[in-house]
């Protein structure tokens, strides 16, 4: 194992790791927005919205994220959607992550005992008031850990955008293999950096989870 080489290319990998982090953050934000809208649709009293929410989830969880990215990036221009690779990566992965988060958020909301809503409605609160004052604060606490799992998956899924030439960690590893012929060292280095990102994120999620629990 060529540790000297690994130390030499390390700064370039670190730079690429920042791209992975930026990609992850933007994807997570877009995913949360899509997931919130998706969950709201799935729990709506309107059948059309419930159908659209369910369709969103089954389409984006039912096909490979890589195919979704290819359709958006390579197929997009054919139907008038021109995106650069980074934009396509964020949008493609964000919508994909949103489908998983839809189920996480919906799951946390329906896990709240129906007596909670009944008690709130009985006091005279409207459906929306009951939702945001009673249901969501409790559901939010239940969401932290499973959303942390979604986040973990999403960070690893950013490796897929190497396939559309976004210069993040995985793509950088592949590029350095081309010039060094050392795939073991290059992929190992990328793997270590992914693990650090995942580890720090995981600790952050665990901290947040402890922080929001009721005494």
């Amino acid at each position, binding site marked *: 194992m060529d540790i000297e080489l690994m130390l030499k290319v390390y700064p370039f990998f670190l730079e690429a790791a920042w791209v992975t982090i930026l990609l992850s953050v933007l994807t997570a934000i877009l995913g949360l927005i899509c997931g919130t809208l998706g969950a709201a649709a799935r729990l709506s009293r309107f059948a059309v919205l419930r159908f659209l929410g369910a369709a969103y989830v089954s389409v984006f969880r039912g096909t490979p994220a890589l195919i979704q990215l290819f359709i958006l990036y390579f197929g997009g221009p054919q139907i008038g959607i021109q995106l650069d690779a980074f934009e396509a990566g964020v949008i493609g992965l964000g919508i994909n992550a949103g489908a998983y988060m839809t189920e996480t958020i919906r799951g946390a909301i329906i896990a709240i*005992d129906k*007596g*909670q809503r*009944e*008690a*709130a*409605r*009985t*006091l*005279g*609160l*409207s*459906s929306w*008031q009951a939702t945001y*004052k*009673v249901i969501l*604060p*409790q559901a939010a*606490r239940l969401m932290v850990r499973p959303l942390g799992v979604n986040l973990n998956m999403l960070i690893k899924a950013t490796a897929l955008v190497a396939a559309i030439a976004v210069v993040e960690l995985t793509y950088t590893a592949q590029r350095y293999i081309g010039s060094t012929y050392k795939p073991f060292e290059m992929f190992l280095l990328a793997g270590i950096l992914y693990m650090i990102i995942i580890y720090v994120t995981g600790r952050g999620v665990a901290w947040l989870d402890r922080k929001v629990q*009721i*005494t």
Partner: protein
Amino acid sequence: MTEQTHFVEIRHAQKSFGTLEVLKDISLNVERGQIVGIIGSSGSGKSTLLRAINDLDPLTGGEIWLDGVQVNKTLPHRQYEKHINEVRQHVGMVFQHFNLFPHMTARENVTMAPKMLKGLSQADADRLAEEQLDKVGMLERIDYYPSQLSGGQKQRVAIARALAMKPKLMLFDEATSALDPELVEEVNLVMKKLAEEHMTMIIVTHEMDFAASVCDRVLFMDKGVVVEEGPPSVLFKNPTQDRTREFLRKHIEGAS
């Protein structure tokens, strides 16, 4: 439509879940200040009837009137929601499983709705919380979370939460059924206190002794109908129906 003359008036209440008919043409009047107990075995429809009064379980037929207002009137969704939220502010409800909000302290449980719906200031809300929690003997625990309270204490906070909206009518849905036997009395005492203050109450209960001691009138329900009703002294001592006798025999034997 005939004019409503009673405080609570239930006319030909009918309720089906699919093909299962749980309420069959029930009519019932309750006057202001009256305390009405509803007894019956599980599945008799007594909780469903109670939950129809504030429309938690909407009827499939019949009418519910409260103080001159029809509760279950037919309106477009938005207007109906506005109407029912208004009605529910005047009807307190206490549940078997308390349904306190676990992320709020006793104080917050009590003040949340009055602050939100009546625009009470924090100072007024605090005064209200102190007053209501004192009434149920829970003032010392005002800043405790539900998870830090016993079942009986939770139920007393839940009663204070309902009273904080200054309801005209209180509905109790087996308020003591989920409690350990030694905690039942503290909740019963609070309910007796409300009775002495002439709060109008409809109480679904399994406790015959309690019903006999506080209710002006008791209804025995079975299979979706009111089999028999009358003052507790009559219903418990000299029931006229076989089904009532059968039920009471089982219950009073079961209790002793």
